[in-house]
C-alpha cells in the first residue's frame, strides 16, 4: 500500500538546531526498498550566491540529494528511515491524492512548461536560507494538499505507523493495555 511520509535531516554545523524537511512517497509501503520518490527544495548553486530555489519533483531515492545521491551521506545502502525521522502523513489512496496535489503545486512554482514528476527544476525564486528554502517549500506543498506543517512535523526517531509516537516506543501499547 502506498505511503506518504514527511522526513528531515540535520543541517551540518548547526548542532542539530536547523533541519531540512522533505517529502517521501513510497509506492510499496516499504520505506527502504528503493522505489521511494522524493520531493525537496534546495539551492541551485554550489557556493554563494546560492542562486534560485531548485526542486526535485519526485526524484527516485537513488538519484535524490536526500537519498543515495546525498553528498553528505556516508553510509551504505539507503539512508535509514528512522534516522531520517520518516513520519507517516497518509497511506493508500489518500497518500496518492496528497502526493499528486503536492507535485502539481510544486510544478507550478517551477514555472517550467511541462514540469512533471521525476524532474528537477529551477524556480524563479531566489534561494534564501532564512526564507525561500527547503522548509518553506515543504510548508507550501503541504498547505497546497491541505496539510498543516505544524501538526505534521517529523517525529524524532521516526513514526512509520503514524501513531504520533516514535517507532519502538511502547508507550501507546502500555496505555492501551491499562485501559
Amino acid at each position, binding site marked *: 500500500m502506498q505511503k506518504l511520509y514527511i522526513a528531515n535531516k540535520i543541517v551540518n554545523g548547526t548542532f542539530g538546531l536547523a533541519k531540512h524537511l522533505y517529502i517521501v512517497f513510497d509506492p510499496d509501503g516499504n520505506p527502504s526498498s528503493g*522505489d521511494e520518490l522524493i520531493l525537496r527544495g*534546495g539551492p541551485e548553486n554550489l557556493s554563494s550566491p*546560492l*542562486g534560485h530555489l531548485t526542486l526535485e519533483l519526485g526524484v527516485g531515492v*537513488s538519484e535524490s540529494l536526500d537519498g543515495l545521491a546525498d*553528498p553528505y551521506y556516508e553510509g551504505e545502502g539507503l539512508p535509514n528511515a528512522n534516522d531520517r525521522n520518516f513520519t507517516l502523513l497518509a497511506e493508500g489512496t489518500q497518500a496518492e491524492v496528497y502526493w499528486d496535489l503536492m507535485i502539481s503545486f510544486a510544478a507550478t512554482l517551477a514555472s517550467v512548461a511541462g514540469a512533471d514528476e521525476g524532474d528537477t527544476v529551477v524556480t524563479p525564486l531566489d534561494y534564501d536560507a532564512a526564507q525561500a528554502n527547503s522548509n518553506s517549500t515543504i510548508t507550501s506543498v503541504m498547505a497546497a494538499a491541505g496539510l498543516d506543517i505544524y501538526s505534521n512535523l517529523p517525529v524524532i526517531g521516526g513514526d512509520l505507523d503514524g501513531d504520533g509516537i516514535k517507532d519502538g516506543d511502547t508507550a501507546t501499547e502500555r496505555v492501551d493495555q491499562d485501559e
Partner: protein
Amino acid sequence: MASKLYIARKRTLFINKFAALLFTFFIVSACAQAHTADPSFETENFKFENYKTQEELAQTLQRMFPVGTDREYIEFILIDQAGSSKKSVESNLDKECEKDSCSFLGAGKLNMGTYTRYYKDISLVPPCRALVRVYYSGDNKTIKPVKVSAGCNVP
C-alpha cells in the same frame, strides 16, 4: 608645426589603440579563465570549485570519464589533482544495475551494485559538497557513466 601636431595626434591615437588592445586582451584572458567551466577545457585543469551547479559538474565529469576509463586515471584527476577523498561502497547485492538508474527488485531489495565514491567539499560556508560515484569492472575500467551529485547542506 602642423606636421608635428599631426605626429603627436597619431602618437596619441596609437597609444589609445594600444591601450584598447591591451584592455581587450585582459578581458579575453579573464573570459578564458572563466571558461574553465567549459567541458572542452583541459582535463588536467579540472577543479570542482570551477563549477557553479550540479548539472555543469555532471556534464563535465561524464565527458571526462566515458565508459571504459581506467581507475588510475580517474583517481589521478579526482584525488591527486582535485583533492577529493575516496570510499569504496560494497552493495549487499550481487548484481550490477542494468539501466542508468538502479532498479527496484522488490522484496526490499535495491540493486545498487558495487561502486567507489569520491567526494570533495566545494565550499565550507555554506557547506556544499560534490559526490562522484564510479562503477568499475574487475579490470578497473568504468562500466557505466559516472554518477555525479552535488549539493549544499542547508535548510
